């Protein structure tokens, strides 16, 4: 049996990595991720965790080293934030293209310039198109559970997974977390299956130069070209939506907790209006929804847990029949709207009926967002205000 501990999301992430019996950890310190790396280092040095801990000289090297360690057959983990994640950009593509099942904790922080160490989600959103799965957590329990789910998922589909959670808001806030026992985790997550083929000493050329078109191999078998490999990655990422749901169900069977798969709903059964958001902000949106319900407005919340792959048909199913939808997110695609709103609107395009929509960029660089503001903006949308806005900005 597990036990309840009062811990931060960073500690929850470190506990989860340990419970998953990771074999190689490589990380470079950056606020607010640092406690994850420090706690894992202590576990390794004290002998509590049997793993190789690599104290690399940069984030680029952190990801490069875990990609390579994974390629030779180890279960690997790393963590980063903000500019550190951006410094990994080349390696993010490389990891996905290599089809290595890395799980990485991404502690969301605004990116410079100018410098901020506080929270928004611009860092991970800007790495959207690198071929990783992105899962956004709303509390520390979900962080711990999602890292455990993440390894199951990544290893099943051979695609790396980012487990994203908000810097300081979650990373440094202590809350009760049910920490499962090693036995429970072992039951859910089998020991790492070494697919490297290294032990046989078979010659291989991993990630070589490749042509665009399929090409015959030495045994006259037609092998994929570059574009086929890209298509397989896309196909497997899209198909992972079902696997995410089934992994969450199996997780629930063992641990008694479910996180809703790709999307979660709050008071949506009879709702006329929805608020859509991601991460801890989506949790806060439930308070705004309650405030509006107290005023007799039937508002619910749809939380986007999995942003990549984007659960488009499910989003459409949840939102298309509503009167209005208001999006709140801590990111922007400069020159257009927030990323979640853009994708959700694209998903709704196929629907016969579509809600009236407004979208808000909020809380960048740690700017406080109060439930009253969210409720107010939602009421404006319900009252007919549409379009794209920035909340609480003086211009």
């Amino acid at each position, binding site marked *: 049996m597990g036990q309840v501990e009062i811990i931060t999301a960073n500690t929850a992430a470190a506990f989860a990595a340990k419970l998953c019996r990771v074999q190689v950890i490589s990380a470079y310190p950056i606020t607010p991720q640092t406690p994850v790396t420090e706690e894992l280092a202590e576990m390794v040095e004290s002998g509590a965790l049997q793993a190789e801990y690599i104290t690399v*000289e940069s984030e*680029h*090297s952190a990801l*490069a080293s875990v990609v390579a360690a994974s390629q030779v057959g180890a279960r690997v983990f790393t963590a980063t934030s903000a500019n550190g994640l951006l410094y990994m950009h080349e*390696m993010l593509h*490389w990891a996905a293209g290599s089809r290595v099942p890395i799980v990485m904790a991404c502690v969301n922080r605004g990116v410079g310039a100018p410098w901020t160490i506080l929270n928004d989600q611009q860092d991970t959103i800007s790495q959207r198109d690198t071929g990783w799965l992105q899962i956004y957590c709303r509390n520390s329990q979900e962080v711990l559970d999602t890292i455990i789910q993440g390894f199951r998922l990544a290893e099943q589909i051979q695609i790396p997974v980012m487990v994203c959670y908000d810097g300081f808001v979650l990373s440094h806030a202590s809350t009760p977390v049910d920490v499962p026992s090693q036995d429970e985790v072992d039951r859910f997550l089998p020991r790492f299956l070494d697919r490297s083929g290294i*032990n046989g000493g078979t010659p291989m050329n991993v*990630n*070589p130069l490749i042509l665009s078109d399929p090409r015959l191999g*030495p045994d006259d078998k037609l092998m994929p070209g570059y574009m086929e490999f890209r298509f397989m990655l896309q196909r497997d990422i899209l198909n992972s939506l079902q696997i995410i749901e089934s992994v969450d169900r199996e997780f629930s069977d063992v641990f008694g907790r479910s996180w809703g798969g790709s999307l979660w709903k709050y008071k949506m059964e009879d709702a006329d209006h929805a608020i859509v958001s991601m991460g801890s902000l989506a949790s806060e949106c439930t308070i705004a929804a309650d405030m509006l319900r107290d005023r007799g407005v039937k508002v619910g919340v749809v939380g986007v847990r999995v942003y990549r792959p984007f659960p488009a048909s499910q989003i459409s199913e949840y939102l298309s029949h509503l009167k209005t939808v208001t999006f709140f997110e801590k990111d922007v695609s400069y020159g257009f709207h927030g990323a979640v709103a853009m994708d959700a609107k694209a998903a709704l395009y196929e629907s016969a009926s579509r809600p009236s929509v407004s979208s808000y960029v909020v809380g960048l660089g740690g700017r406080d967002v109060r439930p009253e503001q969210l409720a107010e903006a939602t009421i404006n949308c319900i009252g007919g205000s549409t379009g794209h806005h920035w909340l609480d900005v003086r211009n």
Partner: protein
Amino acid sequence: MATTSVRQLPKTELIMPGTRSCAGCGLMLTYRHALKALDEGKTIVAVPASCMTVLHGVYPITPVNVICINNPFAATGAAATGIVAGLKATGKTGYTVVAFAGDGGTYDIGIQALSGAFERRVNFIYVCYDNEGYMNTGTQRSSASPVGAITSTTPILAKLQQKKEMVKIVEAHNLPYIATGSPSYPLDLFDKFKFAKNVEGSRYIEVHAPCPPGWGFPNRNLIKMGKLAVESGIHVLFEIRDGKFSLTSRSLALANKGRKKTVSDYIKGQSRFRKISPEQISELQAFTDKRWNELLERHFKDSGDA
């Protein structure tokens, strides 16, 4: 015990016909002899984007009988670190991890990851095959290009600066084994890889790898060009075992007999030096002499200690 005859080299060839490297490639010959010194089936090669990528062929065919892991340009030192850690964590023993990167991937974009790996004392061999420029992308200037060389990014004025002394930077990491080599001296090269294989810790071997298309000399002159570099002192063959320096092979012979060849003898057969000025030739000669004298002094000092 030094290898004295090519007949003593292992007959097994791990590089089959059909590589994509250029004719007369100094890297190719280096790699061939290096792999003869390492254990078949127990060698993992880490490679950045480079001529090595090309040498290893186009998917799904490779002519090289090793485990090769390709990596982004800047990542070689870090990838090797990950390979070593992954092997250890999964109980795979008896492997030699060898990184093979060019001068661009070592002196320039890869220097951070390399320094990090050396500082962490990662148990691997790092080989820099120095062909003095970004040859795979078409002969652009690197910090290893020599003064006076025309490159495609120093097309009119030629390179104005002396090359970086990378081995000095590597030495600052206090490694147990550092060596230089040349494909023109395959026995010396073989012996150094053979020795390096059994050293524990980070090891660095820098090979001067003449490049016919990049330097502008006929393919048939590969060996001659490598020898001229050593004869003139442009490239010096040595090794440093736990800080103890000794000249080897032809450079050792030259230490006793004196150099007969000059920088002018070396550069005249290479079209990349077609615009070098008399002042630059003097500069390159002075740079070469200073370095040679430093190394000679070290050699006699360290061999006197023995």
